[in-house]
């Protein structure tokens, strides 16, 4: 540890010397061109305000394919297939206009659509006859007003996410302020998600007071059950997110991030089974409140002329007994100024929640219980590579397509879950 401290102090002193080396007087202020026939000295200011009409600034399209295998499905009580495939697509339209001097308005209109197939979903019905597929649609709106002189911004957003068994409505207020020298920025975001969890139980555990016979998380069953009159239960998530970013020198910048998240309501999922030591099964039961505290740190360093280090660390703790560390590093290498290749690696670990136990190990006397391996103790590794192309004349010579990114990653957990994800992002101007 002493070596670490000495190294840090040494690095800091080096940075300090570096900072002195860069504080010479800025002579660029004195290079104002002399008056010419084209710019007479006493010319009047012609930079009067002109409102700018609404225009499309950028369109972003992201599509991903996600494939997963595993053998600890929560639907079947911590055993059974976790095979999932998911195709996710989202389109964001960024509209910009200026109706007042120094006020830039940006409206981001987003729409996402996912299609998934989950083998375990079929076993919401005891016989495995439920539909294993489902869809999700998620539109969003975000309006940001920025003062172009100070760089400060204020905005609000709204979201919706709809799946057959889960509806989510969200809203946020966000604010950011730059420091006087514009080398630092503080941001804050207040978010609220107001969700409804449809109470779709495993077929053998449907309460007798309910007449519903639907036995699928996607709302279909081979038995042709009715879709109406399924009660829902609310889940509310409130969060306050804060960040502060700072440019340290011309190559180094850092960011501190912190969230305070509180959840209330039905935090279990009704079609997750739990098998007790006596062999009987029931549905997962978790506390109705949860408080989460994630703290993060980013450090990006431009090393040399074409290598960049992007690093990330997060510590997480919640009141369900979970503690977690996440470390990430990505090293973009700029083969040309407009083409880069970025290998990345992410390590994650977490301790188990107080309420987790594997298949048939919960006692019937437990107050809370789950066999969802998301709450188990595990480590995870995620590695892969990304490519980014952003030539000034457009990708493939097409001026409208200004940026293309492709990224592939392979993810493994010590729970034996493994997945692959490949994503494509296109930016149009």
């Amino acid at each position, binding site marked *: 540890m002493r070596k670490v401290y000495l190294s840090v102090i040494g690095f800091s002193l080096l940075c300090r010397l570096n900072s002195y080396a860069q504080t010479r007087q800025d002579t660029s202020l004195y290079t104002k061109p002399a008056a010419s026939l084209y710019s007479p000295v006493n010319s009047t200011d012609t930079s009067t305000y002109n409102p700018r009409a609404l225009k499309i600034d950028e369109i972003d399209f992201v599509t991903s394919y996600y494939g997963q295998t595993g053998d600890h499905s929560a639907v079947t009580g911590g055993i059974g297939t976790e095979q999932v495939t998911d195709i996710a697509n989202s389109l964001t339209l960024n509209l910009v206009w200026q109706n007042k001097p120094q006020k830039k308005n940006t409206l981001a209109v987003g729409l996402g659509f996912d299609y998934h197939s989950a083998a375990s979903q079929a076993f919401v019905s005891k016989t495995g006859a439920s539909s294993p597929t489902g869809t999700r649609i998620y539109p969003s709106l975000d309006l940001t007003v920025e003062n172009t002189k100070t760089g400060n911004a204020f905005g609000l957003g709204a979201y919706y996410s709809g799946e057959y068994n889960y509806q989510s409505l969200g809203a946020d207020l966000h604010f950011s302020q730059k420091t006087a020298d514009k080398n630092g920025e503080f941001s804050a975001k207040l978010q609220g998600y107001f969700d409804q969890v449809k109470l779709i139980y495993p077929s053998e555990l449907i309460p007798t007071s309910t007449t519903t016979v639907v036995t699928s998380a996607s709302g279909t069953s081979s038995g042709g059950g009715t879709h109406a009159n399924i009660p829902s239960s609310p889940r509310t998530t409130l969060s306050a997110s804060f960040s502060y970013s700072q440019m340290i020198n011309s190559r180094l910048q850092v960011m501190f991030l912190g969230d305070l998240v509180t959840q209330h309501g039905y935090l279990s999922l009704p079609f997750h089974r739990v098998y007790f030591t006596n062999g009987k099964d029931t549905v997962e039961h978790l506390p109705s409140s949860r408080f989460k505290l994630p703290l993060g740190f980013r450090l990006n360093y431009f090393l040399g002329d074409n290598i960049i280090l992007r690093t990330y*660390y*997060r510590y997480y703790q919640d009141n369900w007994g979970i503690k977690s560390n996440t470390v990430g590093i990505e090293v973009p290498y700029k083969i040309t100024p407009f083409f880069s290749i970025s290998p990345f690696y992410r390590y994650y670990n977490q301790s188990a929640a107080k309420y987790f136990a594997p298949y048939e190990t919960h006692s019937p006397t437990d107050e809370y219980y789950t066999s969802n391996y998301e709450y188990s103790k595990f480590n995870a590794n995620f590695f892969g590579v990304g490519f980014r192309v952003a030539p000034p004349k457009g990708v493939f010579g097409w001026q409208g397509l200004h940026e293309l990114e492709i990224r592939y990653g392979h993810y493994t957990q010590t729970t034996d879950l493994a997945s692959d994800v490949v994503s494509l992002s296109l930016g149009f101007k």
Partner: protein
Amino acid sequence: MIKRLVSVTACAVLMLSVTSCVHLKEYQKSRLNDSEMALGNRKVEKNELNFESYREAASGANAGKTGGGCGCN
């Protein structure tokens, strides 16, 4: 673990306090303004962050979403 966290935080604070930040002019920010240097997530990471938040108990502090959506399967 807590001791390690405190040590890392102390190191980070010490590093930043000893290293007074340079007042950068706009023309000195060319590297910092490079798109690869952005202190946020890449657009192409959007769905990766989703699956990580669904498969892991920890989430947040990454400028991503902290709620919404089921991720049930």
